């Protein structure tokens, strides 16, 4: 049974988020430079949910985050919250996509979502009673470069990923 265009898009988005979660827990730790690392989950969620409905997007971000939490050894719930907020940011900013194009859209959304994700990563350990990094140093040396790096990645790759996600409509003849 063939899937409809919308369903195909949801499946592709889900696979993309799952792949992003997998890369987030396997590849990202190996590419970490200090506090700076590629945030595959954020990138995947932001791009994957760009053309989904609101509820679908939020659920996909949430479960993508849950998957990341489950596969990683970090604090459970941080990834889920980061995924939800990344999806929400993507939904909020997607109105500019038609004006500025896919690359700049992905870069903006990812930059904001990474800042939020990094702040969650800063305060979650403190809330859990663990030692966190020095706030000012982390903001200057971690959050800002992390957002810039991931924005660059999103700018370079976002356009292509969005094209892969797009389901071509068959023409009626």
């Amino acid at each position, binding site marked *: 049974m063939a899937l409809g265009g919308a369903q195909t898009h949801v499946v592709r988005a889900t696979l993309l988020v799952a792949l992003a979660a997998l890369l987030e827990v*396997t590849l990202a730790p*190996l590419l970490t430079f*200090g506090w700076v690392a590629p945030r595959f989950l954020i990138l995947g969620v932001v791009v994957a949910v760009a053309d989904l409905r609101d*509820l679908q997007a939020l659920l996909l971000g949430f479960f993508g985050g849950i998957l990341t*939490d489950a596969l990683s050894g970090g*604090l*459970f*719930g941080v990834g889920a919250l980061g995924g939800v907020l990344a999806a*929400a940011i993507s939904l909020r900013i997607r109105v500019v996509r038609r004006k500025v194009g896919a690359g700049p859209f992905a870069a903006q959304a990812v930059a904001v979502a990474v800042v939020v994700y990094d702040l969650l990563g800063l305060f979650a350990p403190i809330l859990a009673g663990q030692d966190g990094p020095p706030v000012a140093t982390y903001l200057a*040396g971690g959050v800002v470069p992390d957002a810039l790096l991931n924005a660059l990645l999103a700018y370079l790759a976002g356009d292509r990923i969005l094209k892969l996600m797009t389901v071509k409509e068959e023409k009626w003849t």
Partner: protein
Amino acid sequence: MALITLCVASLVLFTIYVKEDDSGPLHTVQLGAAEVLRPVRGLFGLATSPFSAASERVEGALDASEKKELEARALEYEEGAAEAARLRDENGRLRELLDGERPSFTYSPLARVVAPVGGQLTERVVINLGSDHGVRPEQPVVVGNNTLIGRTTERVTPNTAEVLLVTDQNFAAGVRILPPKASQGETDEESTTAGESTSGESAAEDASAASEREPDFGADSHGEGLLRTSWEGYLGVDYVDLNADAEQGDFVVTSGRAGGRELLFPPGLLVGTVESVSSQDINQYKNTVVAPAAEADDLQDVRVIVNW
């Protein structure tokens, strides 16, 4: 609405994870996933090993300042701890000096030992108090709970005074040998019978234990004599009668008088403990070796008894 619900769900998961122990369901899920992903991680690790090496180098460069800061902080803490230990030690010594004050004595202000004097055969120190502070020649110098460590010599300036230590061969003092207080006598008997042949080890134990024991000033004297250091370097009590009951572990305190004559030191100042007692038929007196109660090397704060 969905956004708020999912955020709350995330926070609930976070709370459960933080509250549960390592065997909780969320931790178990993570452990299982880690096992499943191990081969994948290994594969990626192999592929990205050049990046990892570069990352470690970058991190090392970034963390250098933090490492230096931590080392400096650790050094600071060590210095603080050493200073605290020194102050605690000093506080203990000063407290002991104050607690040991006797109402019938007049003490000088606290004096600090500023320099050792002399060579191998002399045991003298200089303190930072002199005639301006009421210090005169021939006055007893004490530490702790009235433990005699020497006397001032003729070399007293307005702000310094030379102290002849009890271990100097020119020092002499009339002393009495007193047993420990009754409650401690039993342990002393045991130690005495167990160590007829006095070893250095038991003497050291006696010396360390002496600070916790007290002489029984009300008991009959176990002997009297003259405290002095022999040319061989042993601090001992000369002229102890062969019939005297002096034994190892007894206390040696100043007698204060000899017959009807007042002596140089007030009575009852602790000098040390009897380390060994021996006698031979051809000798007229017992050979008594004394372990000083205060070590010259440890002297820091002392007081001069200027009147009694």
